[in-house]
Each structure stands twice: as structure tokens, then as C-alpha cells.
């Protein structure tokens, strides 16, 4: 693996590995921001083609943050955020012994959460979802957004706070 690290991004295998590791995250990242799947797909495409064009200049360990930066800059102030539509993994099937009331309550809560998520500012929603869905650490999100870990914690805190306020109707 160490030898692999030394290899250039121009090497097909290194490039493919970076793609496998990063493409889904980039897609999600842009989707959380703008709620537009087509744009998110385009961003992945654009970022990786740019990476290939500049493969000689980008060190393998810098490839990820290069990709995030390209994807991020692509739609900077260009498109308006749409409604983010997220699915829920069907956990209810495993818990069929739950009462119908509980299931209904659960579904109501999901709806509230959906609405509350779409009401969040773009940067709070992106941070929250990257952490909750993609399991990204605060440090990783900070790298993607180009801000400090402290700033990400602040966003996360504010996101939770306003989600709760929205849901509880405060």
C-alpha cells in the first residue's frame, strides 16, 4: 500500500481507487447542498475529469480535497437549492410487533424531520446529513467545507437545535 501511495493519480489504478472511495460522498455532498440529483451527478463527473486533467499536479493524498473543492466551486452561487428528498431505510419491517399507533407516530415524526431538514440553512443541512448518513467525522466535513472543526461542531449544534425546535413546534 505504501508503494501505491507514491504512485501518481495519473496511474489508472490509483485514479480508480480514489473514484471508488470518493464518488458517492461527492454525489451526496452536492445533493445535500442543492437537492438536485442531476446536478450532483454532473458534479461528480466534472470533479473527476478535472482531477484526470490535472492528475500530474495533484498528489494522491490531496486528491480528495481537490475533488471536493472542484465540486463545491462548480455551482458556487449558480443554482438555487431545491427540496432535499431522502429515503428511510425500512427498519419498521423488522419491528412488526410495534403497535399501529407507534408506527403512525413514527411516520409523522419522519415527515416532521423531512420538513425540518429542508428548512435548515444549506451548510447546516449538509453538515448534519454528511455526519448522519455518510458517517463522516467532523474533521472530514471540515476538510470538505474548508472550515475549522469548531465551525462544523457549531453548525451541527445549531442544526440539531433548530431541528428540535421545528419538530416540537417551538
Amino acid at each position, binding site marked *: 500500500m505504501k508503494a501505491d501511495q507514491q504512485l501518481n493519480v495519473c496511474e489508472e489504478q490509483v485514479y*480508480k481507487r480514489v*473514484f*471508488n472511495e470518493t*464518488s*458517492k460522498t461527492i*454525489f*451526496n455532498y452536492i*445533493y*445535500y447542498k442543492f437537492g438536485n*440529483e442531476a446536478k*450532483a*451527478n454532473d458534479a*461528480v*463527473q466534472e470533479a*473527476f*475529469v478535472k482531477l*484526470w*486533467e490535472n492528475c500530474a499536479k495533484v498528489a494522491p493524498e490531496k486528491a480528495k480535497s481537490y475533488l471536493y473543492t472542484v465540486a463545491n466551486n462548480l455551482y458556487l452561487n449558480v443554482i438555487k437549492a431545491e427540496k432535499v*428528498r*431522502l*429515503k*428511510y*431505510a425500512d*427498519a419498521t419491517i423488522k419491528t412488526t410487533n410495534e403497535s399501529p399507533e407507534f408506527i403512525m407516530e*413514527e411516520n409523522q*415524526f*419522519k415527515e416532521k*424531520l423531512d420538513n425540518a431538514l429542508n428548512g435548515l440553512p444549506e451548510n447546516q443541512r449538509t453538515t*448534519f*446529513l454528511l*455526519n*448522519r*448518513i*455518510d458517517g463522516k467525522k*467532523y474533521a472530514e466535513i471540515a476538510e470538505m467545507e474548508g472550515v475549522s472543526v*469548531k465551525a*462544523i*461542531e*457549531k453548525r*451541527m*449544534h445549531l442544526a*440539531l*437545535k433548530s*431541528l*428540535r425546535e421545528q*419538530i*416540537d413546534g417551538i
Partner: protein
Amino acid sequence: MQDNYLAKWLNDELTEAELAEFKKSEAYETYQKIKDSSARLESPEFDMDKAWQSIDQTKTVEETKVFILSPFKKFLRVAAVIAVLLASSFFYLSTLNESFTTEYAENKSITLPDASEVILNAESELAFSEKKWDANRNVDLKGEAYFKVAKGKKFTVETSEGLVTVLGTQFNVETRDDYFEVTCFEGLVSVTINGKETKLPAGNSLLSINGNTTMLKTTLNGTPSWLSQESSFKSIPLHYVLDELQRQFNVEVSAKDIDTAQLFTGSFSNKNLDLALKSISVPLQIKFNLDGNKVLFYAEEAP
């Protein structure tokens, strides 16, 4: 509670005391629900293979494109450098003075931008700025030249010995080592030597040898004799005459046992060397010897 405790809680970073306190708050229940519910969220489908294929395609297209473009880009780079060099050298050269030189035994006729005429005698140099010509008619002269100046603004001839200023006239200027002669054939010429200005009316010539300035009469409305292939002198030290002979015929002139400071009045042909040598030697009663392009003047042996 510490800053951003909700973020810390989500990350399991709260201390036990903090966690206990947080659990007591009425908002805790909702927060816990948000945590659980959001853990089951899923992002939209992302077709990784399809994305890879389309990137792979673009990649190869880009590659060939780059391959075609790069030699052209290189060429463009070189072309740009050449263009810049050409442009800058053009601007540099256009600010330089226009210059004309004549060698031994050579005359040149030059027409200045305002149609004034200059005829350069042998071994002379004339320079002027074509760009600034409209602002000031200014020429630099080394050697000898005859000027036929078109009427207009002040016309200045700069030499190492002095300045000649006119408005529109015909005159001759000659500068050789320590020798400065201005002859005015028409109009009025102003000659400034070492800050001292002398007005020179038509038919006069001003001669300065080693700083001694004398005014001489010459013909009115004429032209300098060298234009008609003749060099004439009026009480000029012999060595200047010999220098002129050397210039006109491109020969090496030397003198032996002769007082070259003696004054010479007369003229010699600029076409026929043999005749010219006789024109000089006979009146001075000296002899000459011509060997190839070397001329030796020597004293006639006492009879």
C-alpha cells in the same frame, strides 16, 4: 454545558455528568428521536458504474484532444514570444535615429522628411529622428554636408564643434578634427560656437580652426565646390588639405620634410588623382610619389 454540546453529544463526547444533566432536559426526548430517525436516512441512489463509464469516456476524449492541442499550444507560445520580441524591437528601433554614413571617396544624397536636401561628402555621418521631425528639425552631423533646407520651422545642425541654425536656405557645414567651416550660399545662417552666436549672411563663410574663428567672403548663390567634384581651399593649413585628399580618393597620404602648417589656396579635382596631386604639389613646389594607394609628398631637393 460546554459549547456546541449537541454536536458533542451526537459524537459521544459528553462527560457523564453532562450527559445526565442533558437527559433531564425536556428537549432530550426529541433530540434522541432525531438521532435515531436520522440514522436510518438514506441518500438517493448513486449509480457508480454509470458515473465511472461516462468519466472514462470523457477522459479518453480529453486525452486525444490534449494530444492534438499541445503542439499547437507550444507553437502558440513560441509565436507569442516572437511577436512580443518583434513588437518591442520595432518600437525600440523606431525611436532610434535614422542615420546615414559615407565612406572614403563616397558621396550620398539624402532627402529629409520635409523634402530638404542633404548631400553628404566623403567620410561623414548624418543622423536625425524621423519621429520627432515634425516637432523640431534637428540633425546630427559628423564630417561635411551641404544643406538645401526647405522653408519652415527652425532647422538645426548639431556638430561637435557648434550649432548651425537656419530657417530655410542653402549652406555647407564641414567639421573635421578641430576644423569647423560653415558656408552660407543663400539666406541667413546662425552659427553658435561655444555659446557664441554669429550671424552669417549669404556669400560668407565662417572658418574655425583650433578655436580661431575667421569670416571669409565666398560666392553668392553658388554651391560648394565639392558638389562639382572639386575641393577648393582658401588659406587653409596644408594638413587639412591632405586629409581631404585622403578622404576623396581613399588613399593613404603622408608628408616628409614638409611644413604642413603652411597655408594652401587652390583646389583639386575629386575625380582625377593624378591631376589632384599635381594641383597640390606644383604651387607648393613639392614632389609626390604615388605607389598603389599610398601617396608621399616630399620636399623638392634644393637645386
